[in-house]
């Protein structure tokens, strides 16, 4: 047991602290506008990392004021210090200095939503008992004023022991200068009085502290008295004497007399909150008119649900329709860049590496940046406006029928962008069974990396007919999204009926008011996603593109080289001018195809071809699929590389080349049943190392990622097999 008075600073921490004079934790309930404020205060000077051992994101930023620097740590939102979910636990651990490798922060910036002081004051009161330097930021004070809420800041400050309170509007920046100054002043450790809301608890905590010989801090004693010794606080209770634990139980019996401690705590604290609210806040909040309109509409159960489906349909239509012009532009640039490079550098390995390997490979992934941007933009907007919480509420009953709760809907919707943040978002789900079932279902949601494969195949093989207000291509894409959802839900149902059988998951959800998303917050989040995507394109996909190019280029066959020379010679005798040039081109393509076929990649594709032959795939598709297992978007890059050489290369676009590719007997490879099978394979197969890694981290065992991989790959294979065999039969 480490004494709380000891200062524990790891090497990493020293590096982080260099330059900053104080570390301040930003604490607030979810939806309190905490992240918007954090982004406002730190701007782009922030780093995103992870807490040790868990995948909860750790946002750290620097605030500069008056030549002094303060480090801000944005904690996950929490309603209370008695943690209920993993995210809340992390917030609590950081505040109490229990987090491995980092000492307690030097102070707290408490973020309270002025329109929801009721719950905000509950948390604030717990924070005050910690007796750490603190400043309160009262956010959304403009919305509060518009709703007729009148808060007496002086009275509020007095009620909470003299803590400084700054009223701010994070969206416009009003009040931020004062808040910056107040945060910087925390370095001087301003004093404030303790407010004794619960004297019995304070008394019991004192007794426990002296019995533990001051091994426990007063704060830890209070938390222990309320929470008891549980799995969650094991890390710091493990070293306690049995005697101390016995005394703790005695004290708890006296304090709670068999009633649930959490209930007692809630009653006592909210009594104080109501009294305080009566003295500091006048008027009952009422909704603003534009919000009332939206809320009234959504409060009708059927209209609300229909609205949800319309929103989703519009998002997917936009992803497909809006991005097309930009994508065509990028495609054109990459294409002309490739041919310019090839023309400038001439023949040879280096020229081929740049043009066929790097430009064709990376270019064919970058092209999907517009679609990914639009998708992420919508998801961020839906989340920031508070709509995702409403979606969870609307879908709760439906989700319950498959053994999940409405809370699972948020990870699932996030998984449409990427399963990695989606799986991370399952941390808000308190029940472990429920959480794992959601994690197993999430990778079935159509992520942005599947989109390129879908988009390519749909653009090439689905006609552009119009069906109602959507075109057939958009409809097929929508169908694939639905297919993913159905597969995910069936999986969750299956899991909840077998391995994860258990009681119904709980559900309690705050439904925040609709609010206009803040432009800066949205842009910062969007920029973060773009960075991750470009980083992947620049590292993983670049590497894979180069490796795949090398596998497709080497070894060079001397025999084919000699044969080409011979044929060229023969051609010069009988042909001239344009005909000769055309003949040269034909010979080169045939030679390139022959080279590819005997390359390492060609051999690998041929080796696995028998396995995929029943699905109607030739060795090139097989090779691309194999190469795509680390990251599925690579498949496009590989197809781009594989089809950049060979006799289909005449067609300028990749989809044109796919259409032109044939079996040895001249029949097309990409028939409709084969394409449908390929789409099903992609919809199901777990081709993403990052997802496997995040499942491993979130479930803390290799069992689940291995299971997920085998399960999803088998379903994909069988689905593709059925589609091809039935479709071709």
């Amino acid at each position, binding site marked *: 047991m480490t004494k709380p008075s000891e200062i524990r600073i790891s090497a990493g921490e020293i590096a982080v602290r260099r330059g900053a004079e104080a570390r301040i934790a930003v604490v607030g309930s979810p939806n309190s506008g905490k992240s918007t404020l954090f982004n406002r205060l730190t701007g782009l000077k922030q780093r995103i990392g992870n807490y040790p051992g868990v995948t909860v994101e750790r946002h750290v930023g620097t605030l500069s004021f008056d030549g002094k620097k303060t480090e801000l740590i944005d904690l996950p939102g929490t309603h209370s210090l008695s943690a209920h979910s993993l995210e809340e636990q992390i917030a609590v651990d950081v505040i109490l200095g229990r987090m491995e490798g980092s000492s307690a922060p030097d102070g707290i910036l408490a973020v309270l939503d002025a*329109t929801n*002081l009721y*719950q905000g004051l509950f948390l604030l009161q717990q924070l005050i008992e910690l007796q750490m330097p603190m400043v309160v930021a009262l956010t959304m004070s403009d919305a509060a004023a518009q709703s007729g809420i009148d808060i007496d800041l002086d009275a509020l400050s007095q009620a909470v022991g003299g803590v400084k309170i700054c009223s701010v509007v994070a969206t416009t920046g009003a009040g931020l200068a004062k808040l910056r100054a107040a945060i910087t002043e925390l370095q001087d450790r301003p004093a404030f009085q303790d407010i004794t809301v619960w004297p019995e608890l304070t008394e019991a905590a004192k007794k426990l502290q002296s019995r533990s010989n001051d091994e426990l801090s007063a704060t830890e004693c209070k938390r222990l008295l309320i929470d008891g010794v549980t799995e969650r606080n094991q890390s710091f209770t493990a070293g306690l004497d049995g005697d101390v634990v016995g005394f703790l139980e005695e004290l708890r019996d006296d304090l709670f007399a068999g009633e649930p401690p959490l*209930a007692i705590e*809630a009653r006592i604290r909210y009594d104080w909150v109501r009294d305080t609210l009566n003295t500091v806040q006048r008027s009952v909040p009422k909704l603003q008119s534009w919000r009332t309109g939206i809320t009234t509409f959504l409060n009708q*159960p059927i209209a609300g649900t229909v609205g949800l489906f319309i929103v989703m349909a519009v998002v997917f239509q936009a992803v497909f329709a809006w991005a097309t012009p930009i994508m065509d532009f990028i495609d054109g640039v990459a294409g002309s860049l490739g041919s310019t490079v090839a023309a400038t550098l001439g023949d040879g390995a280096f020229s081929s590496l740049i043009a066929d390997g790097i430009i064709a490979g990376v270019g064919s992934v970058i092209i999907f940046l517009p679609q990914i941007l639009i998708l992420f933009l919508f998801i961020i907007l839906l989340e920031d406006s508070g709509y995702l919480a409403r979606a969870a509420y609307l879908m*709760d009953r439906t989700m319950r029928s498959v053994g999940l709760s409405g809370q699972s809907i948020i990870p699932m919707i996030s998984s449409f962008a990427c399963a990695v943040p989606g799986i991370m978002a399952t941390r808000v789900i308190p029940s472990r069974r429920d959480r794992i079932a959601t994690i197993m279902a999430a990778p079935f949601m159509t992520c942005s990396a599947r989109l390129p494969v879908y988009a390519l195949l749909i653009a090439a093989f689905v006609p552009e007919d119009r069906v109602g207000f959507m075109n057939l291509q958009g409809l097929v894409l929508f169908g694939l999204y639905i297919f993913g959802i159905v597969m995910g839900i069936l999986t969750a149902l299956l899991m909840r009926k077998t391995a994860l059988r258990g009681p119904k998951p709980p*559900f309690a959800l705050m439904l925040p008011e609709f609010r206009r998303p803040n432009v800066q917050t949205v842009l910062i989040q969007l920029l973060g996603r773009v960075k991750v995507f470009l980083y992947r394109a620049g590292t993983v996909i670049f590497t894979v593109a180069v490796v795949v190019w090398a596998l497709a280029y080497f070894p060079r066959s001397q025999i084919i080289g000699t044969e080409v020379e011979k044929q060229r010679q023969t051609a010069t005798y009988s042909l001239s001018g344009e005909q000769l040039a055309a003949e040269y081109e034909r010979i080169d393509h045939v030679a390139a195809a022959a080279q590819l076929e005997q390359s390492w990649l060609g051999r690998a594709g041929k080796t696995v071809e028998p396995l995929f032959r029943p699905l109607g795939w030739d060795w090139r598709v097989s090779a691309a699929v194999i190469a795509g297992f680390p990251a599925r978007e690579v498949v496009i890059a590989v197809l781009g590389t594989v089809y950049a050489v060979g006799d289909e290369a005449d067609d300028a676009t990749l989809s044109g080349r796919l259409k032109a590719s044939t079996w040895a007997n001249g029949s097309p490879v990409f028939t409709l049943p084969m394409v449908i099978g390929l789409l099903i394979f992609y919809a199901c197969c777990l081709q993403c190392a990052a997802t496997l890694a995040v499942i491993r981290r979130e479930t803390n065992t290799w069992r689940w990622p291995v299971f997920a991989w085998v399960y999803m790959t088998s379903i994909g294979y069988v689905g593709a097999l059925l589609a091809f065999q039935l479709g071709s039969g």
Partner: protein
Amino acid sequence: MELNSYTLATLKHGEKGIIQSVDASDPQVQRLMVLGLVEGAEIEHASTAIGGDPIEFRLFGCGISLRQEHARFFQVAPVVAGD
């Protein structure tokens, strides 16, 4: 006492009530208490999802949704309009 017959689950759309007593034995109910659903709090029925479940309430101006099965644990005294 007519109190027993009124719970959060029996409130109708637009009706208000003050929580009189909470059966806190269920851990999920304790969680709701931490969110502010305690004795003395005034609460209003705002909407329901399809099928009448879950229910959205307004608590001091904030939306909070809970399921029928949990709403039953909260006994309320109805607030008559105009009080």
